[in-house]
């Protein structure tokens, strides 16, 4: 194996400004890159202290996707069926859950203790799932 890190992952968002409001404004992520490439807006975010792992917030549409395909992507995304699942870790799941829901973030799963840790699930404004876990130290 010659690969050594997962540096970026991509999810689809329906509106990049609204995505910034959510991922930066509510979740507390940082803008890593916001560049107008002419053909697309290259917009990535990362967690504070972890700039090596970026999430590309891409808007589906032409010419990358033909209009009919883009419409399918948007429909699947909004019904929560597109995938694009992010997993993050936290030091305190209950506290993070309380802070996020107080900001109006929508949850689909409350904090639950599991063998691997305590985690909960939230939904971004478009339909992507984000799972946030306080992981137990592995023996």
């Amino acid at each position: 194996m010659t690969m050594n890190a997962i540096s970026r992952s991509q999810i689809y968002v329906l509106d990049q400004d609204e995505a910034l409001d959510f991922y930066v404004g509510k979740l507390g992520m940082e803008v890593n890159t916001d560049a107008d490439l002419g053909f697309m807006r290259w917009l990535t975010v990362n967690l504070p202290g972890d700039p090596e792992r970026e999430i590309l917030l891409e808007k589906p549409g032409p010419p990358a996707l033909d209009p009919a395909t883009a419409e399918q992507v948007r429909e699947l995304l909004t019904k929560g069926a597109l995938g694009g699942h992010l997993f993050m870790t936290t030091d305190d799941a209950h506290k993070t859950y309380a802070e996020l829901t107080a900001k109006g973030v929508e949850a689909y799963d409350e904090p639950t203790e599991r063998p691997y840790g305590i985690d909960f699930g939230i939904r971004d404004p478009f339909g992507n799932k984000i799972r946030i876990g306080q992981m137990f130290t592995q023996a």
Partner: protein
Amino acid sequence: MSRAVEESNRAMLRARDAMDRAYAQPLDVPALARIAHVSEAHFIRTFRATFGETPHRYLQRRRVERAMYLLVQTDQPVTEICYAVGFASLGTFSRTFRDIVGESPSAYRRRKELAAGVPSCFIKAWMRPSDAGRPTQGRPTANADPGAREPISFG
């Protein structure tokens, strides 16, 4: 047209998320329709068109899935599990469970063991009974003895 579909999908997803999150509470269709900002009749029809089953059925199957989980993962009595997952009576729980799973809660408990280390939202997504059938993607296990399975670890 397309924008309206997206908004409708997202509203239906919001109501479905509420069922996944708050299945233990006395949720009903009027409350869910309010979450989606539509009338009850519109909600039932649109939810079914979006996700392939009625909201009532979705919630029943979510509650039964959570019951299946608790039956295997805990030693709680069946009666306690019935109320813990949101059913209001033991009779309704037993009838619904048998109707959906094909056996009684205690028979299911005797027979099953679940993987312990997967994130619970994946268990909830993949173990919720469906008309489309049982999960089929899993790799066949070499040893079918449920007690022999090594718990995998996430994170």
